[in-house]
């Protein structure tokens, strides 16, 4: 049990990183920021799920997915459908041609709730769907590709195409999905108003805890035999195959895992932001998610979270100060980061700080053990 926990925390160095992150997310941020800024950080942290998923898929699995927004979207839309149904009760939709269905359906001349929406009356089903739908889709996509040994750039392009196709589908089927406007005006979750300040605080902490939990699960996977296989696979796929492993299954596993992680983030996004729209599932947000992981360091789960926070923070700060020039600053920042530290923030930490931190820790340990030694001597 202890060994398992130790692995989930990522051994000693990993545990320190995780602890620092936990303190920042769960303690410093809530104390230092007002609820508006904290809610913003909460939104950024939902993107961090996608970035963490990408560290698994891209950093360790070696599969560059340019379609993580798709899975983020599945999670988000499942949650939004549930919330929208709850917001569309008979009294608040009484002025519609067909009361009791979501407002955008009424505008699109839909007269009864479509089949696919029916099960989303149940919260239990919704939670199940948030995991199961992206799992199923990602399994189909990755099995179709990897079993046929399609990989590398081709896979990236296909994931990107899927992001584009899905956006077009969602925008086109507006009677079913709310089209380009998305699913808006979400109010309560099982009667609990998600727009109050106290709800926002609670959602922030749930979100933060989930993110830390996801990182721990990823640590578990990476420290297992499976994790070592993934690394081997990324670096020399053929050798792993010739050693008798079915390479495709491992790749499918990572891809599905990344998809589910992304979807959890999507569901939390809907809860914290209060709506879901196709602008978050397309090509551009999908690529942004890759940028978050790249800036944080694609081999570091914790780094991905910092990468997401810093890029999004920069986005908000630049655009507040320079409404028409901020994109140039963002561009300059990306170029700068890639030129100065190609391995991202985590790479920077590894090359400059890691040794010092380790030495410091060793010294503390030595001091402690020599203290103990003294105590033992004194007693004898």
């Amino acid at each position, binding site marked *: 049990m202890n060994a398992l926990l130790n692995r989930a925390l990522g051994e000693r160095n990993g545990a320190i990183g995780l602890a620092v992150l936990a303190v920042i997310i769960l303690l410093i941020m809530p104390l230092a920021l*007002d*609820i508006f800024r904290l809610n913003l950080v909460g939104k950024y942290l939902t993107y961090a799920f996608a970035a963490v998923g990408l560290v698994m898929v891209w950093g360790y699995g070696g599969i560059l997915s340019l379609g993580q927004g798709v899975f983020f979207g599945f999670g988000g839309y499942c949650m939004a459908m549930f919330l929208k149904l709850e917001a569309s009760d008979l009294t608040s939709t009484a002025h519609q041609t067909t009361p009791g269905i979501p407002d*955008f359906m009424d505008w699109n001349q839909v007269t009864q709730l479509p089949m696919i929406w029916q099960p989303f009356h149940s919260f239990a089903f919704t939670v199940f769907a948030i995991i199961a739908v992206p799992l199923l889709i990602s399994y189909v996509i990755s099995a179709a590709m990897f079993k046929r040994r399609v990989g590398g750039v081709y896979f990236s392009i296909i994931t990107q195409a899927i992001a584009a196709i899905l956006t077009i589908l969602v925008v086109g089927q507006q009677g079913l999905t709310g089209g380009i406007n998305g699913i808006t005006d979400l109010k309560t979750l099982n009667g609990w108003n998600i727009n109050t300040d106290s709800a926002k605080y609670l959602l922030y902490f749930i979100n933060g805890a989930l993110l830390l939990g996801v990182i721990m699960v990823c640590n578990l996977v990476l420290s297992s035999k499976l994790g070592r296989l993934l690394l081997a696979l990324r670096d020399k796929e053929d050798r792993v195959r010739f050693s008798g492993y079915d390479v495709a299954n491992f790749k499918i596993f990572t891809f599905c895992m990344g998809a589910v992680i992304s979807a959890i983030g999507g569901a939390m996004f809907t809860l914290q932001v*209060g*709506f879901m729209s196709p602008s978050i599932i397309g090509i551009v947000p999908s690529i942004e998610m890759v940028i978050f992981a790249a800036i944080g360091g694609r081999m570091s789960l914790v780094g991905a979270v910092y990468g997401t926070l810093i890029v999004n923070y*920069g986005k*908000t700060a630049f655009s507040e*100060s320079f409404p028409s020039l901020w994109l140039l600053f963002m561009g300059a920042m990306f170029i700068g980061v890639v030129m100065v530290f190609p391995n991202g923030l985590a790479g920077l930490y590894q090359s400059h700080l890691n040794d010092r931190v380790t030495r410091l820790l060793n010294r503390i340990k030595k001091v402690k053990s020599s203290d103990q030694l003294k105590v033992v001597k004194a007693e004898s």
Partner: protein
Amino acid sequence: MSRQTHQPSAVHPARQEALQHPRKGIVAALAGALILGLTGTAFGASGIAVTDKEVTVGQLHSSTGTMAISETGAIEAEQLAISQINAMGGVLGRKIKVIQEDGASDWPTFAEKMKKLLESDHVAAIFGCWTSASRKAVLPVLERDNGLLYYPTFYEGLEQSKNVVYTGQEATQQVFAGLDWVAKTKHAKTFYLIGSDYIWPRTTMKLARKYIETVLHGTVVGEEYAALGSTEFGSTINKIRLKKPDVIYAAVVGGSNVSWFKQLKAAGITGKSQTLLTLSVTEDEAKGIGGENLLGFYSAMKYFQSLNTPRNKEFVSQFKAKWGPTAPIGDVTQAAYEGPWLWKAAVEKAGSFETDKVVKAEESGTITFDAPEGMVYLEPNHHLKTRLRIGEWRADGQADIVYTSDYIDPNPFPKGY
């Protein structure tokens, strides 16, 4: 009052990152340094950023991204109105200070910035949004924080929030009078409806079809929706050739508009032989489409830059003096110009900047403004009573106004449609 008081954070987030990770924090610290200057606005007892000398308002449009080209006119018009109001002494003796935010053509960003304007900057009013999607995204935030939004675009209706004043036309104002005109002057009986596939064209066409069939006793020979951003209209044009409708009734938006009109011209369908009435071409779009591709087609709008009144000529020259001689002034630009003025009138009637009092003044039915388009009347349902005009496009990208309707009452929730 649902807005909370502003609590300056003990440690600035960027600094905090920098403290935790001295080397990682360079970028964040830089970002932080840039925004540190933004804090420190004084708030009155009402929770709104107003001092004895100054009142702060927000402006929330897309200055980057795909919508920037459309929203720039609105940004400029609102700033022109605000600078004119300030030159006249401001509102209730306070100069207006503007905080401009970029929605970046991205709906979650719009919601984020709206929240920032209301909860961090405590602005008294916001002039902004262009697409329905961005308005829908900010609406929950706006209602929760009890803010005021002046929304300039003609849109589908089906909405009436106490926190929004809609200075553009809703669908019934734009559709019915235009159809009446085309049926009467062109003796039109058959109509072909085409729009981009989203809520505004869908709603508009729903109204149009019903009106054509029940009131005009005409027939709709085709109804089609092109995906947003679509640039291929070949099959639609072939169907139009086959059906030979008296009128093509169009609501194609954005970049699709350019392909749509160019392909029509290439197929030999021009203003000489075919009546086409569009709801989505203003002077802004005309510039992109090219006047030669529009020649002889008609637009239904409440305002055209060519409007020949002394009030409009004055406005056009003021706008050009501030923003350069080449900037076209479209319907939405003019509607955006009305926003700050209507807000000023409502605040002065209320004698206060407080949202609830201003809303009460807005709903009193007595707020009017002598706009470039003529007098406009703010009705208790938060929409404007205006006229509709039909413009015939010239090769230079301007339109000759061939018809002006009587005043039309706004009716965002039409019965029986």
